[in-house]
């Protein structure tokens, strides 16, 4: 009997330890909130009449704006997407994303990401002008969606966001006047995807892909279609 109680107690203790550690670790990195695309009306697309969803994002040269709070969280000097990194869009819809790009930039280490890919008719609109590619030496960030090929529908979208010139006028909020990039893509069935930046913007680390480039909530996040 005593052995039984002891064993049961040990098993319980182990379960509690795993649960505690798991909860702590799971909560330590969960993104605070999800940004849902706003559906308004329908749009005619190559795939017929689909609901039209809108998503607005910003890319900041630091973390003072966006989801990390006004103090910038634990890494105020990291570049960051905002207002959230956990995105959600409806299935079987046309999703139009508008990104205000406040950051300067430089040369891509892979020209591949200088081309707009996966959007409706392969274009994006930069400050009102339709483009298919951006000068790979003047890219600020990219918005690149990809996924594990699985039973869910494939989705690959990559849009380069041109860099803001160093001498761009400064706005009231302290950031330079942004480039506004708009593009649309069509979602398939429900699924989970990830998105990230492919411009090496994690300064100071090897290949500039550390820091904000390797931490969810800054230059990458998740995209839930559903």
């Amino acid at each position, binding site marked *: 009997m005593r052995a039984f109680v002891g064993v049961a107690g040990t098993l319980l203790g182990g379960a509690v330890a795993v649960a505690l550690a798991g909860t702590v670790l799971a909560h330590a990195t969960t993104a605070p909130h999800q940004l849902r695309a706003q559906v308004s009306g329908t749009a005619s697309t190559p795939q017929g009449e689909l609901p039209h969803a809108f998503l607005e994002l910003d890319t900041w040269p630091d973390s003072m704006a966006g989801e990390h709070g006004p103090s910038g969280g634990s890494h105020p000097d990291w570049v960051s997407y905002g207002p959230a990194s956990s995105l959600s869009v409806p299935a079987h819809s046309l999703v139009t994303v508008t990104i205000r790009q406040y950051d300067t930039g430089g040369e891509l*280490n*892979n*020209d*591949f*990401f*200088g*081309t707009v*890919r*996966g959007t409706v008719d*392969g274009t994006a609109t930069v400050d009102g002008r339709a483009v*298919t*590619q951006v000068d*790979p030496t003047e890219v600020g960030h990219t918005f*690149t969606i*990809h*996924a*594990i*090929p699985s039973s869910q529908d*494939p989705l*690959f979208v*990559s849009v380069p966001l041109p860099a803001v010139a160093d001498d761009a006028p400064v706005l009231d909020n302290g950031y330079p006047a942004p480039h506004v990039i708009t593009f649309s893509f069509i979602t398939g069935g429900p699924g989970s995807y*990830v998105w*990230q930046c*492919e411009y*090496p913007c994690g300064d100071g680390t*090897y*290949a500039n*892909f550390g820091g904000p*480039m*390797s*931490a*969810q909530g800054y230059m*990458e996040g998740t995209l839930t279609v559903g």
Partner: protein
Amino acid sequence: MTDTLTTAPADAPGGPPTVPAWKRAPIAPILGIFVVLCALLTPFALFVPAHLMGDAASAHMRGIESTVTAFSLASVPVAALVWAVTIYSIIGWRHRGSEPPAEEAPPLRGNTVVQVVWLVLSSVLCLFLLIWGLAVLRPTPSAASAGQPLMVEVTGQQWTWSFGYPDNGNATADRLVLPVNQPVQFRVTSKDVIHSFWIVQMGVKVDANPGETTLASVTPDRIGTFDIRCAELCGLYHAYMQTTVQVVSADQFASWVQAQPRATS
């Protein structure tokens, strides 16, 4: 292999002398277990690994699958022998109780014949493995003589693959499309850390190293969609560094590659 074990000195009286050695315990029951295990393991070795590995999409992958099957079959008797003795020792030679058993067992301190046979057999198995491996590794003459292979540049970057077709006007794509029955040579490199370019169903795997270009070649021979995965932990989104390869007819490939964006440089 089992028979050699009967040469162990049989100083303990077994059955009557008229019974041949292999019919006496423990040889006969161990042989029985051995046969049963072989009967169970052989179909497993024949079908299960190859089935799990899925349908191959290249001759190379078929070679790998038959290698796995062959090695599994070769190891069936080895595993069955070891496990037969193990199982029998649990059943046939057990002694329960809190007191140590008397020391009645034959004090075998080794048996030269058994050891030599064991060593020779394991060396022969080893040689078989080596020769088989080298034979599969040898480049197939058909691939070499099939003319100019299609060149594909594969670039790993955290955490996506990108593909370039230098022979087709520098077309670029985020997923791979290949013409069927056409030898392909991959020139694999990385922009940052080590990735590993793995086409699962074609048995192609080579690391994408920064600063180096590594080569791999294959001739896909089945139309369909197959998986490309990164096989070397490469950071945050390593799990998501996956895409597909579509093997299509030569005509479809030609029209597809025409439609792809060109490299900017």
